[in-house]
């Protein structure tokens, strides 16, 4: 039987607020345990939460970027359960009325496919602290620095049909929140993590299959692997006559398998109710308009502009606009090159990407800065270096040897001019009369031989186009 995979994602994004969502304590990562937890974060008797309005503004930015409805009035509720890293015994989270409602986002699945994924909602909530089970000799340590950190939970529709689509969606959201400046998106520090709801159904069936929720996936690699092994598990189970049960599962990356964490029957009754300590979050039209006016250029807009302004193809434009870093790199390089978008794009996605891949480096780590690359492209464009020399210059730049100008100067890689090339061509023609005869009798393939000879004699510094032109005129009968 053919199976269809159905995936919906819940992405938790840590908002880039300086202080916590309900207290004035800092949200900075990496402090000594429990040094960034104030009385409110500790849930001391008598303390009260005060909402940090920055979190609402950031959430609205996200909502506007995805064309979502923005609630004029949204409500915080309490999600009640006991856990030692949850100091108050409840998590304050938006439940029935979230700040961001329905919207959608377009993802680039591969070179030729885009897809629209529905956003169900996005709501604000506070993070819990951390339970540290190692290093305490059989006991558990609690670090409440993270307690009260503002989160935006973005819930998608079950619109994705493969792990690949899920990754593309997650990447797009990741890119978007970084573009908007509402999160650092740091996955190692847990600023961006995801739960995946996965089910399968026979191809063509309308009803959804029973889903399993895989918790806390914090890398693009793991989410793809986790979904794929979970899909495989569900199909194997059903084909062997079993039934998928609704449950929460954990992905074990060492064993590459998912494990049951708790079933539906074991699930908590969270007893949600509106938090009586907090007023509704009221958003006026003016605030929305103001935020709308302060939105940066977003990936899709950038992509369209790159295509229009620099005549790039859809895929290239999409890749270059896919992250704040790549778009920034590209635009800086174009500036330094004097506006050569197409050439810069080719170099970024060709030579530069290949070098990064080879060294397993990120764009931000590249020794070739956008200014350096732009400078090189400029020289290519004004023909002061040939493409062959350009590659050598790039290599030298990669090895920190300076700017294109400095490198060309250092190695004396100047393109020969016509007055230098002409005598060389004359000499080659004189020394290779047999080939001249062949060419003149119509064997045009021999032309390449002459080009090769000239380039060899000029050590590659001649401009191929110029060589072609000169050779053609001199070889003419």
């Amino acid at each position, binding site marked *: 039987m053919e199976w269809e995979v159905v995936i919906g994602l819940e992405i938790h994004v840590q908002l880039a607020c300086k202080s916590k969502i309900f207290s004035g304590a800092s949200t900075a990562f990496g402090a000594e345990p429990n040094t960034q937890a104030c009385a409110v974060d500790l849930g*001391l*008797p*008598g*303390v009260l939460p*005060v909402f940090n309005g920055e979190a609402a503004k950031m959430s609205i930015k996200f909502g506007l970027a995805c064309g979502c409805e923005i609630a004029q009035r949204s409500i915080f509720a309490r999600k009640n359960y006991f856990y030692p890293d949850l100091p108050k015994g409840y998590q304050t989270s938006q439940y029935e009325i979230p700040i961001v409602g329905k919207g959608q986002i377009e993802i680039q699945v591969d070179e030729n496919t885009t897809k629209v994924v529905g956003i169900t909602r996005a709501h604000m909530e506070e993070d819990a602290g951390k339970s540290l089970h190692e290093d305490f000799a059989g006991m558990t340590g609690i670090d409440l620095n993270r307690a009260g950190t503002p989160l935006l939970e973005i819930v998608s529709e079950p619109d994705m049909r493969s792990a690949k689509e899920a990754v593309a969606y997650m990447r797009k959201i990741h890119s978007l929140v970084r573009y908007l400046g509402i999160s650092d998106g740091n996955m190692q520090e847990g600023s961006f993590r995801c739960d995946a709801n996965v089910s399968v159904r026979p191809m063509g069936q309308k009803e959804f299959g029973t889903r399993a929720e895989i918790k806390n996936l914090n890398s693009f690699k793991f989410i793809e692997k986790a979904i794929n092994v979970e899909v495989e598990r569900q199909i194997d189970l059903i084909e062997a006559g079993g039934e998928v049960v609704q449950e929460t599962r954990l992905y074990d990356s060492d064993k590459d398998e998912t494990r049951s964490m708790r079933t539906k029957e074991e699930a908590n*009754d969270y*007893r949600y109710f509106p938090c009586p300590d907090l007023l509704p979050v009221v958003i006026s039209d003016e605030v929305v308009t103001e935020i709308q006016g302060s939105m940066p250029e977003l990936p899709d807009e950038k992509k369209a502009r790159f295509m229009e302004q620099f005549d790039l193809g859809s895929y290239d434009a999409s890749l270059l606009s896919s992250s704040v870093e790549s778009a920034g790199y590209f635009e800086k390089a174009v500036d330094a090159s004097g506006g050569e978008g197409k050439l810069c794009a080719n170099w970024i996605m060709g030579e530069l990407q290949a070098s990064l891949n080879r060294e397993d480096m990120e764009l931000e780590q590249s020794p070739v800065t956008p200014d350096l690359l732009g400078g090189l492209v400029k020289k290519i464009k004004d023909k002061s270096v040939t493409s062959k020399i350009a590659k050598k210059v790039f290599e030298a730049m990669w090895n920190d040897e300076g700017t294109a100008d400095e490198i060309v100067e250092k190695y004396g890689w100047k393109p020969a001019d016509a007055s230098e090339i002409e005598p060389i061509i004359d000499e080659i023609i004189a020394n290779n009369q047999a080939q001249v005869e062949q060419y003149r009798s119509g064997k045009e393939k021999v032309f390449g031989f002459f080009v090769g000879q000239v380039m060899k004699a000029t050590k590659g510094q001649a401009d191929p186009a110029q060589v072609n032109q000169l050779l053609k005129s001199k070889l003419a009968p």
Partner: protein
Amino acid sequence: MHKKTLAQLSAALQAKEISSVELTQEFLARAKQFNEQTNAYITITEDLALQQAKEADARIAAGNTQALTGIPLAHKDIFCTDGIKTSCGSKMLDSFIAPYNATVIEKFNAAGAICLGKANMDEFAMGSSNENSFYGVVKNPWDLNCVPGGSSGGSAAVVAARMAAAATGTDTGGSIRQPASFCGISGIKPTYGRVSRYGMIAYASSLDQGGPMAQSAEDLAMMLEVMAGFDPKDSTSAQKDVPQYSAAMNDSLEGVKIGLPKEYFGEGLDAEVATVVETAIEEYKKLGVEFAEVSLPNTHLSVPAYYVVAPAECSSNLSRFDGARFGHRCEDPKDLEDMYKRSRGEGFGEEVTRRILVGTYALSAGYYDAYYLKAQKTRRLISDDFKKAFADVDLILGPTAPTTAFGIGSKTDDPISMYLSDIYTIAVNLAGIPAMSIPAGMAGGKPVGLQLIGNYFDEAKLLNAAHKYQQVTDWHQQMPEGF
């Protein structure tokens, strides 16, 4: 000195007829002496009080004073006090030394008032008789065999026996007014949001409100001027200026219209209490007040609605008492669940446990709509009742409680009958409006309280009406024998 009003004490201090240290010593002596009979204090903070009194005297000498500078007060043990045990009447917090001050405490400190100690109360403010305190029942100074009312029973007894010049209390369903009534003192529950709840240990967040308890309306006005005001730390506190309550105290009541809710004079009201209220009405008529009957038709729903909303909120508010970070932790927990179960089971008393269980049930999946949502809808109906009534009248008047103070132990086996002692006070909290209780007579040797209810933020009108009454009567000046 102990019989003087706050205004008189303040004048004596300013005129240097007495120092704050002397005054504090006098009240400390009374507090220690009468605590044996009344059990009104959980903690007497003698060292702190004398230290603060010295500072107050320095302020007075420097001429840097406010109305309450140097005056010894008691605080309900629900307000967090930095460095001092804040027990909330519970074994759970018997070892809890608060690391910060409630906003109300900060305000009194800034005003230069003296903290004599922390007053006894029903555990986590749940109760109407002070019999639910881990520290034992408070005895009513008017009759040591009777309860002082609750949950601010300690504060009421402290004021009645003049073991402090005045006290703070909190009122979630009548917890300032009912004990004020039982102990023959004055108490006001302000509009919800008028007094900051920051540092006031939460019972039912949408109903809790702090307020003063004192000898007279005049004293209450002086106290409330210090306590009230917007607090950036409490999102539910009102961003509204605090009027000079003392300034409007003497306004004439000529032409003021007071409503008498017929639902507050029906079945269940003790006949002697009814007579006292009727006498007070006559007194008010002499002051030029006009009376009209009003109807609050949903009054009978207030107790049931309250006993869904308040337990629901408390079931969540009290989740933080889990033995993990502060408060009682059981001995040698086997595992996490064992720690939770035994710490909470041992730390909470019977009534608190009952309300947590009721509230947990009311919020559970499948019951939420039938209980919690329905109670919230009922709450709106009750608010609408008051809204309609206040379209026609300035204030509402009635009894504070259906009876006078009842005997210790007489209702402990019957929670429903205990809950009904708050029948006239609870609706006010559900609506969020202000109300007060002032002494208006005696029945069987025990004080009877008169309740005045006002519209939102009409505390000034309430205090004015109470003060005018107290100028022509002396019930508020009477003291129990033996104190």
